[in-house]
């Protein structure tokens, strides 16, 4: 092999299937059998061999040179860079020296090209497999995440559903409560209806009873008046001596009888009056009434009586004119009753009558006495029938009277569309206030 040095490559090496290169010690390619050029698709002769080596192989080349003779015992793989591709070639290295000129010989160590191809294919397949595995794993991770998301949503849905169910249950509970309350209400309503019916029945019964009572009063009063009138008539006849002169004792007895009969008749008249009002048989005769004139007449009528009791009677009219449309006879009846009471219970103290317009356009009449006054307990019942203060029973009144005066007065006031109230301070006196509307009801 050494004989061809310096004479160019031996003919047999020119046809060698692998690459054969002759290099100078500085790695300049001096000659080539042309195989490498074909592989790399580039010229190599005249250039440095290291120019076709990849960086790793350049480092390997330096190592190879550094080893000296030791390098010749090994096969060296070098990666050569061609125009478009890399080629890993194995070389055997040998050195020659002739005439003081050192030469390096690289002879390619041929490998089975099928093995090369197989190797290439295997590594490509491996790479593809790894890549597929990578994509699969990524896809799997994505699926897992999607699944987790789905599960989370599912859980959330379940949670929501639970919440909904809970709310539903709450609503149902509320519903039941409401139903119970409704049932209770129905029950109360039924009870109320029943009570109402009972009340109505009672009212009807009461009305029937009242009307029966009033009819009874009216009838009885009328039936009573006739014999009382007869008693009084005969008493008058006796007193006027129609049946002969009466002795002093006889005359006193008849006068007592006459007085009792008069009282009885007044009582019957009052009862009659009351029942008339109650059963609605009384009728109003309304006209424009000058209250000042009406009160002046009453005051002058009763002044002698009041003076007799030592009670000065004074009238104060705050507003003039002071007129209302009402039934004068009934008003007179009420005020007369109030004044009689004031004189009766006034204990000789001054009595005042005030008259003025009320805020609603009507009239207020106040009768103020300085008597004993009425206790709170009694105030509640003085308008009840047959109640006489300071009396134990009917007929034993200390002040005399039927016990129907105030009840009748209040009913008349109400009949006239007004009202009768009382206020009193025990030991100071009482005030009765008659309020009348501007126009009595039922007036034309």
């Amino acid at each position, binding site marked *: 092999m050494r004989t061809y040095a310096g004479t160019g490559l031996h003919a047999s090496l020119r046809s060698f299937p692998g690459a054969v290169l002759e290099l100078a010690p500085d790695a300049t390619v001096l000659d080539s059998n042309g195989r490498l050029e074909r592989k790399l698709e580039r010229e190599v002769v005249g250039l440095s061999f290291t120019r076709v080596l*990849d*960086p*790793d192989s350049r*480092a*390997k080349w330096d*190592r*190879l040179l550094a080893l000296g003779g030791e390098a010749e015992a*090994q096969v*060296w*793989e070098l*990666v050569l*860079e*061609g*125009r*478009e*591709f*890399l080629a*890993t070639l194995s070389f055997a290295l040998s050195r020659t020296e002739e005439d003081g000129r050192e030469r390096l010989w690289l002879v390619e160590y041929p490998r089975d090209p099928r093995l090369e191809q197989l*190797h290439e294919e*295997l*590594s*490509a397949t*491996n*790479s*593809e*497999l*790894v*890549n597929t*595995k*990578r994509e*699969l*794993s*990524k896809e*799997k*991770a*994505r699926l*897992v*995440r999607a699944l987790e998301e789905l599960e989370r949503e599912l859980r959330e849905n379940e949670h929501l559903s639970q919440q909904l169910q809970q709310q539903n249950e709450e609503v149902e509970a509320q519903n039941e409560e409401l139903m119970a309350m409704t049932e209770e209400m129905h029950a109360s309503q039924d009870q109320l209806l029943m009570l109402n019916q009972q009340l109505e029945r009672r009212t009807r019964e009461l009305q029937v009873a009242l009307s029966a009572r009033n009819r009874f009063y009216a009838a009885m009063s009328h039936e009573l008046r006739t014999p009382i009138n007869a008693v009084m008539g005969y008493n008058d006849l006796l007193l006027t001596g129609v049946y002969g002169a009466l002795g002093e004792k006889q005359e006193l007895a008849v006068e007592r009888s006459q007085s009792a009969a008069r009282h009885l008749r007044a009582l019957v008249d009052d009862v009659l009056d009351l029942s008339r009002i109650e059963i609605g048989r009384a009728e109003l005769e309304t006209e424009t009434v000058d209250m000042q004139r009406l009160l002046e007449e009453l005051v002058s009528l009763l002044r002698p009586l009041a003076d007799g009791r030592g009670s000065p009677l004074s009238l104060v009219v705050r507003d003039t004119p002071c007129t209302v449309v009402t039934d004068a006879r009934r008003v007179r009846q009420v005020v007369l009753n109030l004044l009689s009471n004031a004189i009766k219970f006034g204990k000789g103290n001054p009595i005042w009558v005030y008259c003025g317009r009320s805020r609603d356009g009507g009239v207020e009449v106040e009768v103020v006495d300085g008597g004993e006054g009425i206790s709170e307990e009694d105030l509640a019942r003085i308008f009840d029938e047959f109640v006489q203060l300071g009396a134990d029973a009917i007929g034993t009144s200390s002040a005399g009277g039927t016990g129907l005066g105030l009840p009748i007065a209040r009913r008349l006031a109400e009949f006239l569309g007004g009202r009768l109230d009382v206020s009193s301070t025990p030991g100071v006196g009482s005030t009765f206030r008659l309020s009348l509307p501007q126009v009595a009801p039922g007036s034309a």
Partner: protein
Amino acid sequence: MRSVTAEEVIRDYLDALLEGNRRRAFAVVDRARGEGLDHRAIYLEVFQPALHEVGRLWQENRISVADEHLATAITQAAMARLYDDLFAHGAGGGPVLVAACVDSERHEVGLRMICDLLELEGWDTYFLGATTPLESLVSMVEARAPQAVALSASITPHLPRVRVTISALRERLGERTPLILAGGRAFLDDPELAARVGADLTARDAMEAADLLRERFPR
């Protein structure tokens, strides 16, 4: 936490690779995982230095290219075994990266590592693998509208293809062109090479690439 050092694992793992024993290699990784090494540590402190060592051994003519390819294949398979775990941990929904080796480039492990490391940090990465045809890469980038594209070339003859790929992307996408990262062994000798082929950024290894992208697109 770790009762085992990365150096011990590398030594065991490298032995398994040089033996060509994938089962043993997987067992070493499983044990390391059991001892508390996380994905990032296994990638950066075991796989990367082990493969560098394989390259060095080839340079010293102590192993052949076939050995080196086998070691790489085993490591890729070892990475694949971690994927279920790795992607399950990634939150997803982060920035998107499309990564590819230009045309006939076969050296894909480095790029795959960048993708996987970014996945760990919540990125959504599409690894198109070795020898991606130019047209399908451009279409993919157009469709996915990623925040970044990573291109890899390991030998100088592939540099022109990187330049062609980048200009095709810029021409097609104009304003919408994402950040372009170029790397690989071919770029290591000249730090300005990446800019000359039209890339925005370059990195010396997977860790630096992941760091740079994390800086640009903080979560």
